[in-house]
């Protein structure tokens, strides 16, 4: 029943967006904004035959990218948040590297990781990981000192402090940073799937764009959105499961 309600909410959101889109497309009536009806029609005809394979590739890349970012970013962020000395050492480095446009290093990344999956996943990771680090660091810094008191007095090891206090206390923030990371990861697909592949929803959109096929392009965008919604809902669901207190 709860699930039904959720599904209904998304359905309604989709409806609103399509309605707005439809109205705009009818008012301005230019090819740049095709009618959503045409797009959905196209999508329903070609999804299985044309788009499915792109979704599979992209999903794999996103999940791997996010996973790697979390594996690297969560521990780094937590350590920086908890040990202010390490924060002092690392945050200047993070601050220096974070704003660099990673796409400029695409050639180097391709040299290191080749033209295949590795370099795509690496690009996603390297873009997303900094957001994770910064969010986690700030979250851990924000844990009030007195929450630690009981475990200090019990002589908890660093690992126990991590497990019993830091991770649960920053779980909400971990989920938030996954959400933000996910959004970013999906939208950078676009840049990482333009080379060395003919699959991936990012490639599909870019290729449709080159071919000035806006109907295909918007179909791809819708698929990307839906992918996003499914992934976001998964996180919301995890949040409900894990943050029950």
């Amino acid at each position, binding site marked *: 029943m709860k699930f039904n309600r959720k599904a209904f909410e998304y359905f309604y959101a989709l409806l609103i967006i399509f309605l707005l889109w439809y109205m705009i497309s009818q008012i301005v009536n230019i090819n740049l904004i095709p009618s959503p009806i045409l797009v959905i029609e196209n999508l329903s005809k070609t999804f299985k035959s044309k788009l499915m394979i792109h979704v599979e590739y992209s999903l794999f890349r996103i999940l791997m990218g996010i996973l790697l970012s979390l594996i690297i970013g969560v521990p780094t962020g937590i350590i920086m948040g908890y040990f202010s000395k390490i924060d002092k050492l690392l945050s200047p480095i993070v601050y220096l590297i974070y704003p660099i446009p990673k796409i400029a290093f695409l050639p180097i990344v391709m040299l290191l990781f080749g033209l295949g999956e590795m370099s795509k996943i690496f690009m996603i990771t390297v873009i997303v990981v900094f957001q994770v680090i910064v969010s986690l660091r700030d979250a851990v810094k924000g844990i009030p000192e007195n929450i630690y008191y*009981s475990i*200090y*007095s*019990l002589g908890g*090891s660093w690992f126990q402090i991590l497990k019993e206090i830091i991770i*649960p*206390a920053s779980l909400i923030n971990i989920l938030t940073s996954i959400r933000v990371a996910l959004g970013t990861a999906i939208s950078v697909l676009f840049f990482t799937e333009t080379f060395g592949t003919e699959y991936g929803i990012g490639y599909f959109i870019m290729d449709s764009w080159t071919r000035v096929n806006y109907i295909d392009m918007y179909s791809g965008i819708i698929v990307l959105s839906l992918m996003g919604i499914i992934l976001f809902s998964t996180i919301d669901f995890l949040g409900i499961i894990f*943050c029950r207190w």
Partner: protein
Amino acid sequence: MVKVEGLTVRYRTNEGYFTVLKNINLDIYDGDVLALVGPSGCGKSTLLHVLSGIINTYDGKVTINGEGINTKKHKIGLVLQDYGLLPWKSVYENAVLGLKIKSMLTSDDRDYALFILDRLGLKEFVRRYPQKLSGGQRQRVAIARALILKPDILLMDEPFSALDEITREEMQELFIEIQKEYKVSTVFVTHSVEEAVYIGKRIAIMSKSPGTIKQIIHNETYGLKDKRLCREFYDLMIKIRKDIKEEWST
């Protein structure tokens, strides 16, 4: 034995350093029950924080059986003034946290934990999260945690302050019972002179801020049965009340 020698603690505030405890000397013998009485803000909680290893920048020397405080080695049961419960752990999980950290959660422990929780009237709440408990229930969870650990040293910061009179007396009895059985060295802070005299083997009276120890009174009535029917009990209370009235109101 816990030995505090020349302990001075300062807090850093925006306006500079603020001396909270000044030259505290205190011995807590094995099996001792030291009741700590002092005016609000005199540094009682701070002293417990030092003894429990939470504060570790201070002047002076604090030793347990001759060596520095080692929270990993010593089992310190602590009831914090604000309870120190973890909101993401259920009552049961909070209660056995101490055992879990010391990594020895046997099935005997579990039984003991449930026994204590039951004695504290928390049986029906074991699966609740602290945020959904009343103030007094939370305080009892904190007490449960300290007792379930079967600590070497028990530090309690106003442990019964949020309990009604009946529950409070039950808790006091429970404490006395457990203390008798396990002979755990205890320091407990209280605002109630009556409680200090009822439970304490010795009673330490602190001065106003910056906190110093003004007097340590040996409680002659310790261990008596049905104390509240004894004259000495009331005499001691009156004496202490007189002392603190003089001491604190200047």
